[in-house]
């Protein structure tokens, strides 16, 4: 083997070895690298009541209720399979609305109510002008009106 070939194998070996080590480490910490868990994951493997964790999903349309007179708001977070009831007292991010992705940090009580200490909004990679979004929302709106009228 020429010295140059040796050096090629050295570089390949470094990248391969570090890559393998990183892959194994990331695999081992897979659960910890999840920034949040979906309602399905939480209900499958409930996390003990005293531990704080993050729950993420969509705000279930029609589920947001506010207490008159204080900041408490209640809503359900869904992944379209399971849903968990959340209560939160505080200021919500601007993007918070029904159907929006959110991530809440807090504790799940024995009664199944998730008491949040922090609410973060999540948005997706899609961007469009308001008019386009408006026209895309038209069909479901019309259907709803028809269904309500029938």
């Amino acid at each position: 083997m020429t010295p140059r070939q040796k050096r090629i194998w050295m570089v390949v070996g470094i990248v391969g070895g570090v890559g393998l080590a990183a892959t194994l480490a990331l695999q081992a910490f897979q659960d910890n690298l999840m920034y949040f868990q979906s309602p399905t994951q939480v209900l499958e493997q409930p996390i003990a009541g005293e531990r704080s964790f993050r729950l993420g999903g969509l705000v279930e349309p029609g589920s947001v209720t506010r207490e008159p007179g204080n900041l408490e708001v209640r809503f359900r977070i869904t992944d379209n399979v399971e849903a968990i009831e959340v209560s939160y007292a505080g200021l919500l991010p601007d993007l918070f609305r029904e159907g929006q992705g959110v991530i809440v940090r807090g504790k799940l009580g024995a009664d199944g109510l998730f008491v949040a200490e922090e609410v973060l909004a999540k948005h997706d990679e899609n961007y469009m002008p308001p008019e386009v979004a408006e026209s895309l929302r038209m069909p479901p709106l019309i259907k709803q009106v028809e269904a309500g009228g029938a």
Partner: protein
Amino acid sequence: MWTWFHKLASPPHFYRIAGLTIPAFSWAAGLLVAAGLYGGLVLAPPDYQQGEGFRIFYVHVPSAILSMFVYATMAIAAAIGLIWRMKLAHAVAAASAPIGAWFTACALATGSIWGKPMWGTWWVWDARLTSELILLFLYLGYLGLRSSFDDLQRADRASAVLAVIGIVNLPVIHYSVVWWNSIHQGSTLLTPGAMPIAMKWPALCMLAGFALFYGAVLFVRLRGEVVRRERSAAWLREVLVK
């Protein structure tokens, strides 16, 4: 093809070519960034969800892409320098590092400014954000390691090994939003239909402009590296005295 490559690797030839390329790259970068900024900040419509605030996209996304592209360039140049003992390749890696570190810092800062109004937080220890922060530390570590050697050849080789090791972080950054639940959204530019063309073209202009800016600054810095490394060479005296 190889003679062209070998010729480019010779310091006097490179010095001359770089001198001719820098003005062209600088002007093209300036025009593209001006067009991209005008298109992005004035012509593009606001977003249905994020309103005018989404326009930070036009700085954040190109910075983030360049932060990774510069690292890839640096690591490949470092590997070429290690394997073929090519001095100019080590010089490319050394000249790229501060530029890449600034792109990374820009991506992190604009991301943070964007995160506060939209997500509701300046920073979270999310896989995407954390791996990008590690990229900044890799750049800073590379620069620190280089500066700790007095001998240029030893600095080149030691820092090249670090640059090559760090390339493992690039796929982690890119796929972090796919592999794990993340607060960060997926890639807009790589998802077909995620952005209408009226919003997309300024982003592509900015990206091309940033890439050419990197090229121009890289060549300026490379000429400096060549002057430093070849300071006792006869050809350099001729060029500089002329």
